[in-house]
């Protein structure tokens, strides 16, 4: 895919009314929770963008790709959603192949809404059912830090068996808040412990996203999951979460994890860059 050169469209207002003025492929920048991001508008429509802006849910502007490969290791994509069926399948494929860090949830949306069957293979249907049952039954369990439960063992087995497909389905449940916050919290604590590089990015994404959950308990669990994952790529999103966090105790716990990442040998993230 070729993009036009930057036209320096600044998003001063970040208002919903601004976005429809962007043209597809137009370069712009926006202030996001994890810092300024340059990007390209892929497709913009009024409705959903306005809805999300009103909710203040800055991580989920539909129809935009935000990227800047030079700005650090964190995936810069906010979200990519291709709900417009006229959006060509080949463009979706190009995007996903070009930007390997596009989140799994994004891929799923494109699959569902743009019928881009070739972009992603179909998920085994039993994952959703199994996870739904697992999350429902877990409401009756008592959780304690560091102690295995039937839920944690089954969740890890599911991820080991189905990989990113399982993490994607879990992401849908957690992000849409269809899960009891206590159960969601337990899931987030455990996904940070799974030792599997193939799902690391999708787990990182879910944990990073959950730092902005409406539930303080989910946010706390996301921090703990990130601490277990111990991936310094979470620095930018963690810094953003710290700026937004209004609970003093939780903010301090976030800072503790941020320091853990900064302490990882010889790596400093001044100005969001490894030096």
């Amino acid at each position, binding site marked *: 895919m070729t993009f036009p050169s930057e036209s320096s469209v600044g998003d001063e207002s970040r208002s919903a009314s601004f976005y429809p003025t962007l043209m597809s492929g137009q370069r712009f920048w926006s202030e996001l929770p994890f810092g300024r991001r340059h990007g390209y508008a892929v497709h913009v429509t009024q409705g959903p963008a306005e809805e999300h802006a009103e909710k203040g849910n800055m991580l989920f502007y539909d129809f935009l790709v935000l990227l800047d490969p030079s700005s650090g290791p964190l995936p810069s994509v906010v979200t990519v959603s291709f709900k417009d069926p006229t959006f060509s399948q080949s463009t979706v494929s190009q995007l996903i192949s070009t930007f390997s860090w596009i989140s799994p949830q994004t891929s799923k949306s494109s699959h569902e809404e743009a019928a881009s069957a070739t972009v992603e293979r179909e998920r085994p249907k039993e994952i959703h059912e199994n996870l739904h049952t697992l999350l429902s039954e877990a409401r009756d369990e*008592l*959780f*304690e*830090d*560091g*102690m*295995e439960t039937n839920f944690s063992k089954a969740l890890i087995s599911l991820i080991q068996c189905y990989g990113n497909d399982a993490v994607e389905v879990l992401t849908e449940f957690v992000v849409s808040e269809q899960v009891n916050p*206590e159960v969601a*919290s337990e899931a987030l*604590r455990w996904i940070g*412990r799974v030792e599997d590089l193939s799902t690391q990015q999708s787990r990182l994404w879910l944990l990073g996203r959950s730092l902005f959950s409406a539930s*303080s*308990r989910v946010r*706390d*669990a996301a921090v*703990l999951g990130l*601490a*277990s994952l111990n991936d310094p790529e979470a620095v930018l999103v963690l810094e953003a979460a710290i700026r937004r966090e*209004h*609970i*003093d*105790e*939780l903010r301090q*716990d976030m800072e*503790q*994890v941020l320091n*853990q990442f900064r302490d990882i040998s010889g790596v400093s993230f001044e100005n969001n860059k490894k030096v």
Partner: protein
Amino acid sequence: MAFLLRTIRKSKWYKHEGVPWLPAGEFQADALFDLKTESNRLSLWQVKDDRSNLNRVLAAVAANKDHPSNLDYALFNEDTILSLNLTLVQTDGESADNEVSVMWHRELIELSASRLLQLAKGIFTDAERERVSEANVLQLIARAVKAREIDLTRLKENIRAKIEKLI
């Protein structure tokens, strides 16, 4: 006066500022799960007034778990117990450090529901609530293993593997 330690989940004890629906001065009902009793007894750990055994108690408790994890705890003065007329006894506890299990385990006994609620209020009001990160927990356990306070072979596999890399 010594302190008493109970492991908790900090997020269940957030105050009104962090939980909008919660009336000011009240605590979340889920916090009571952190004070789960057995036979109307509540397990606690005693920490000396100079806190000199705090890290050893934390290591002993954390090393008894299935996986490396953060450790959240509430630490409150024994005065809280005395002021509520609760009965505290020394009993053997379950931890990875035999001396900690024998010397510093305590139990509140004959707890009624209303007394437990009073205790929860006392903890909510007076306790220090702290978190030891997973990384620091591992360091504490490693130190205890080196000092022969904890037997490496008694640790669960997931913890033992990480401790072996640290010592």
